[in-house]
């Protein structure tokens, strides 16, 4: 075969290969457009109801119009028509007057942002995140916003697993990366080289709980943080993504109960702050979420749906061993319980 004939063959096969890719893309685009235009799988209304009374605010993952948008349902009737707003978020937390929204901004260059909104969706502050959003929590008085995101760069191997957790005030200023604060392990100052923090839950406008993780050893600690002293003090081991109960006596979290690294299995558990006692909850599936308290004896968490990619359900579970996990809101993710004072 002459060189010219070889190049011709290459050209023909290239056109075929790229043409097939284009065809795959065209079909996928058409299906995506159909999904987008389709009415939502669940019954929805406009956004005004977001500012209603006691409610669950969450990310709507029902296929069709309004997918990925912040929605809400009344606490006492979670399966009723959901009010879907115009704001799309990947992770959301809300109080009565405002909500925090972490988002992957798609574009020719994807970026990641945190945005703080009033309850009627007026933006009040925004700041960039260094990677894929993970967790967010607002303090109960609405003055502090905690965000955790992954640090997603290209030269990942040289850095390893890395998160960035920061606490911002509502005007957008922050207290720095928690990694720069003083870590006190078992009463002594310590600075392990691979520490990471994630999953803040606020006690008041100075104190909070969070997870400190040592990547190489695979140890995680529950830490209590003080904003005024810029310290983090360890309390217990193997506690991840803490969530303080409304009465402030217990912490719900995910505990690694099997496997390690990529095969880790997390089980929801409750830690009693005064006694230090930990009880595992009757959930056999692996949960990877920061738990939310519905009330002092019920927790909520998101779980991916087995039959659909990118779709989740919010499940509820009693903390007193009195029941099995139940679906609380279908096609929903990142639940946040809002009680109007």
């Amino acid at each position, binding site marked *: *075969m002459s*060189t010219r004939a070889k*190049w011709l*063959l*290459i050209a023909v*096969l*290239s056109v075929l*290969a*790229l043409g*097939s*890719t284009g065809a*795959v*893309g065209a079909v*996928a*685009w058409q299906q*995506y457009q159909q999904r987008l235009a389709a009415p939502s799988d669940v019954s929805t209304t406009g956004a005004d109801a977001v500012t209603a009374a006691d409610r669950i605010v969450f990310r709507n993952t029902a296929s069709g119009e309004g997918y990925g948008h912040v929605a809400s349902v009344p606490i006492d009737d979670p399966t009723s028509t959901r009010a879907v707003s115009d704001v799309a978020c*990947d992770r959301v937390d809300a109080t009565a007057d405002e909500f925090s929204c972490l988002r*992957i901004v*798609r*574009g*020719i*260059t*994807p*970026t990641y942002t945190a945005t703080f909104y009033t309850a009627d969706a007026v933006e009040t502050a925004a*700041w*960039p*995140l*260094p*990677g*894929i959003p*993970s967790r967010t929590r607002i303090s109960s008085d609405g003055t502090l916003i905690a965000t955790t995101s*992954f*640090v*997603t*760069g*290209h*030269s*990942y*191997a*040289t*850095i*390893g*697993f*890395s998160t960035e957790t920061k606490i911002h005030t509502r005007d957008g200023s922050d207290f720095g*990366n928690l*990694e*720069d604060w003083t870590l006190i392990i078992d009463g002594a100052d310590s*600075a*392990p*080289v*691979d*520490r990471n923090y994630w999953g803040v839950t606020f006690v008041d406008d100075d104190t909070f709980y969070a997870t400190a993780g040592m*990547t190489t050893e695979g140890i995680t600690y529950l830490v209590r943080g003080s904003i005024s002293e810029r310290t983090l003090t360890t309390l217990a081991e193997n506690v991840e993504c803490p969530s303080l109960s409304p009465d402030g006596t217990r912490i719900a979290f995910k505990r690694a109960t099997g496997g390690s*690294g*990529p095969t*880790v299995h997390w089980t929801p558990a409750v830690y009693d702050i005064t006694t230090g006692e930990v009880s595992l909850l009757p959930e056999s599936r692996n949960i*990877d979420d920061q738990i939310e308290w519905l009330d002092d004896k019920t927790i909520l968490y998101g779980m*991916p749906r087995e039959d659909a*990619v*990118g779709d989740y359900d919010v499940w509820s579970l009693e903390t007193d061993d009195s029941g099995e996990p139940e679906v609380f809101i279908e096609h929903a993710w990142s639940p946040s319980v809002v009680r109007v004072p």
Partner: protein
Amino acid sequence: MYISLTNSPVSKEKRDAKKQDAGRNAPRGVRTVSSTVLTLGLVSMLTDISSESVSAILPLYITGFLGLSTIAFGVLDGLYQGTSALVRIAGGYASDRLDQPKWVAFVGYALAAVARVGLLLWSGFAALTAVITADRIGKGIRTAPRDALITATSDPDHLAGSFGVHRMLDNIGAAIGPFLAFLILLIVPDGFHIVFAASLAFAGIGVLILGLIVPNVRTRRAEIAAGTRTRIDWRSVTRGRMRRVLAAAGILGLVTIGDGFVYLVLQARSDFAALWFPLLYVGTNVAFLAFAIPLGRLADRVGRARVFVWSHVGLLGAYVLAVLPMEDIAATILCLVFLGAFYAGTDGVLSALTAQLTSVESRGTAIATAQTVVAVTRFVSAAGFGVLWYAVGREPAMIIVAIVLVVAIPLVAVLLRPLLSPERADAAKVEAS
């Protein structure tokens, strides 16, 4: 830029005649680059579009689509370090021993392409691990034989320039890949499988071009025909002036902490860098491709060892700029420019320097060894810097490494003094052969 084609490989005997020829016909400033180098550059470009498009979206795919935790992602990417370094020397050795550089490289490229099929067929962590590992092994296998092919089909006097051309094309692919992937996801947000299909298509075309077009330059054919094939002398790879080069590459590798940390320092100080953090490496790639040819040609003119050593000033510049109190946007952009120049002045130039110092029969092994020394020492450096980072803090750690680098550069310049000028490098080559 104008690149004229020649019909290489150039044999040593023909070289002088050819040089005279070029001197007569080619206008001033025009260099000749063999068509094989351009074809290999095209193959690398297509392969880089393929692999970079996938790695750019991998974090989104794993966490957003598969619903796996990002811890899994860290583990996945860590697989790269071990597998690639080990396989690389094996690839270089096999290429030399079998005298089949093209087909050893072909195995490496084909393995990565076949792995892409797996991405389309399976999802889930186990499949992803297998695919990424195969991809990295493929990269390890192909690098040294490919660089040996570039050496064999290039004019030895313009070798670094040839590597520059190849690395430029390679980095064009590395810059296109992420944008192609993100463009696809912009149009179809959950269209990960389209990215995988495109990745497979580009990898397949690359393998096809390599298989059909690139000649298999068998530098030891006569020797094999005569039945006098000798074993590869490992000592020749680590002896004499090569030992100096390996030591220099190792010492400088130990102070090369990796761009990831530079990006992290920038990201911590500036909202601008934080906003663009996921894409800073693309900026470095663009700077790399812009500098690849000029620095390669400079290396041919003033000496490859000299450019290799002094390019680390670019690295030093990046360290210093990352902590210098100046305008954030300027610091970020200059940092990327300096990092790109550093890679452009070291990557292909080191291969050219190694090729120049070793004989034909152990060239692949030598190139692979030098690259492995760089990869391993940089990994050690990154791990060590991680410790320093937490011990003394972000910016002090950076300043300490910058100071060590200030000491290391002249030290290595002294170490490489016998090789610093091009004339002396030629003398060294004669001595070695």
